[in-house]
């Protein structure tokens, strides 16, 4: 979906810079960070629809970063993009809640396709969450306040 916000997390600056250019030219709003810590800070500051996360990074690695992201309880989907190619690690990531994974090098079209899939998933979850909240309001009108409270996160 054009205009979706993406957070690119990779320690390869040339890669993030190139990928930012390519994705921006395809209509996405891209923010690139080069570490897990920076990714968490960026997510705390702004909303992102999809996070494209490298697994092998110095400092906080991809799996730890993913766990931290999950702790934030945001409506954001994570797509694993790994050069390590370890399917086991990628599967671990999926068990932790990542949407899907891709191995480097990958075609831009393939990545865009996965991003779209992730965005749709995130959208579906948001809508499902909204429906639940509306259902609650119908059942108990006092809960209507929660619709206007901290509405950007998933209900844990």
């Amino acid at each position, binding site marked *: 979906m054009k205009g979706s916000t993406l957070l690119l997390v990779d320690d*390869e600056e*040339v*890669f993030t810079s*190139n*990928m930012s*250019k*390519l994705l921006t*030219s395809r209509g996405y709003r891209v923010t690139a960070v080069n570490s897990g810590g920076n990714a968490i800070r960026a997510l705390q500051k702004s909303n992102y629809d999809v996070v494209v996360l490298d697994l*092998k990074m110095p400092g906080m690695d991809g799996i730890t970063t993913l766990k931290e992201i999950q702790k934030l309880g945001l409506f954001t989907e994570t797509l694993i993009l790994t*050069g*390590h*190619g*370890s*399917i*086991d690690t990628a*599967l671990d990531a*999926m*068990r932790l809640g990542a949407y*899907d*994974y891709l*191995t*480097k*090098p*990958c*075609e*831009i079209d393939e990545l865009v396709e996965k991003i779209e899939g992730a965005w749709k998933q995130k959208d579906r979850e948001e809508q499902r969450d909204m429906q639940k909240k509306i259902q609650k309001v119908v059942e108990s009108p006092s809960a209507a306040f929660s619709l206007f409270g901290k509405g950007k996160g998933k209900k844990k």
Partner: protein
Amino acid sequence: MAKDKGDNPYSPLYRKFIWTTLVCSLAPLLLVGWGIHIHYAGFTRDKMLSAFHERVDHHRQVIDLFLEERRSRLQLVAATHSLDALQNQKNLASVLEALNRGDGSYADLGVIDEQGRHLAYVGPHDLMGKNYSQAFWFRPVMERGIFISDMFLGFRKVPHFIIAVSRSEAGKKWILRATINTEAFRSLVEQVKFGKTGEIFLLNEEGLYQTTPRFGGHIMEKAPFSVDVPFGTTRIREWKSGKGGNGLGMDHQILAEEWLEEPRWMLVVRQDYAETFQAVNHANWAILIFLHISALTLLLASFVTTRYMVNLIKKRDGEADRLNRQLQQAGKLASVGELSAGVAHEINNPLAIILTERQILLDSVGQTPSLDGEFKVQLHESLCQIDAQVHRCKRLTQNLLRFSRRTKSVVESVSINAFLEEVVDLTEREAGSNGIRFQTEMEENLPPILSDPSQLQQVFLNLITNAIDAHEGKPYGSIRIGTRSQDNAGVEVVIADTGCGIRPDHLDKIFDPFFTTKPVGKGTGLGLSICYAIVRRLGGTIAVESEPGSETIFTLFFPLKPPPDLEGRLREQEKQTGGIPDERINLTAGGR
């Protein structure tokens, strides 16, 4: 053949085993055998000699008793009869008859006065009137009162011996003389049998036979051996004759000698040494035969057990070698596996950057219509080439990664026959275009195996693709695919091709990572290594035989059930993937 034997590395071990077992078994056997022989031979010899001694002594007593009795009877007659009474021929005949009652051991009886004149005589010879004053026995009997002579011829000219006793009566001495029945006496001595070779005879102090020996020699002849001075006990000795002994070829005899009390005759019993000690010899033979049979048995047992042991060692060595090779192969694969994950990451990241750069260029070219047409074409071609080469590198890294990590395994029941047919279908088009036919020899009712179909597919595809590639330069060929059940333990799959074959020096390297004989860029040298790793992971084995220029045969074995560790891992994975829809993982994993 001799060369083969010489080259056999187990020959020294075989010889060493044989020697050791033979020495360890034969030495105690011989020692025990020798000990038994010595002890038993000594014991038996003593027993034999003791029996021999007893018989000789007994016989001596019999002869002594005979002579003693004859002498006593004569002394009794002399003491109880007067000269006058005995001078009467009739009375003397009555006395002889009385003396001979029962055994007839007196041949004649005569009465002689102190001048040596024969006063009366009863017997078969005409000796009346003969004067014995010069006879060799006359003086001794007159002096000692009793005399038993040696054998002599006398007036009658036949060998005989006499017993004479003297008595004084009214100041006159007279002699009662009896001739002992020589035949009766000789039969008493000579007819005693000592086996087949034993003989018994008497010798006087001059060494003259007093009876006729059984073998050779005659009464009153000189015996061929010396006679010692009288001694008290029975003497037993060995006697060796250099001239065939007694004429029976017995040159080694055992000799027993014992002196009679009166007269001084020596009783001699001699027997062939071998016959005397026949029992000892039999025992020796029995021991010898027993030793030989035991030695032969040990020899046979030694050969059989050594052969068995050496074969066992050979088999164990073979297994150890095979395990060692597998371990080396596994070691190589493990080190490549460890490296590959790191290398893949290091290569994949630059490749990703190259791809993004290419995409940027591609995007830029699309957005710049003013570019020169020829340059644009060249740029496009170069970008396509970059893409192709990046993907080539990606394939390489993916192959490398197949060592280090396990793609998601799904264990299910696989019908190998149906599965191979599917793989054949997949590759038939490519094979057909190279002039290669498939021949399948599938065993019917093959049991299904529990295995990972995707990994099996990769193994079979790799092997069949290799088989097709092996026909390069050949206008046609065939790939034979066979299956058969292996004793309910698993399934054997044979993939044989009629391609270029594998050189013997390449055979032990073909499962090594990066070993390839294909031209640069055509093969990564990882296909067979991956096959090897997968087959081992699935609990199977893979082996290769090849005839350079004509054929290569890959023989694979898959167990009916995968190894426990794979099953365990799968169960664990299943538990862990509980939250993820399986088809999503399969699609993703399969899509790579």
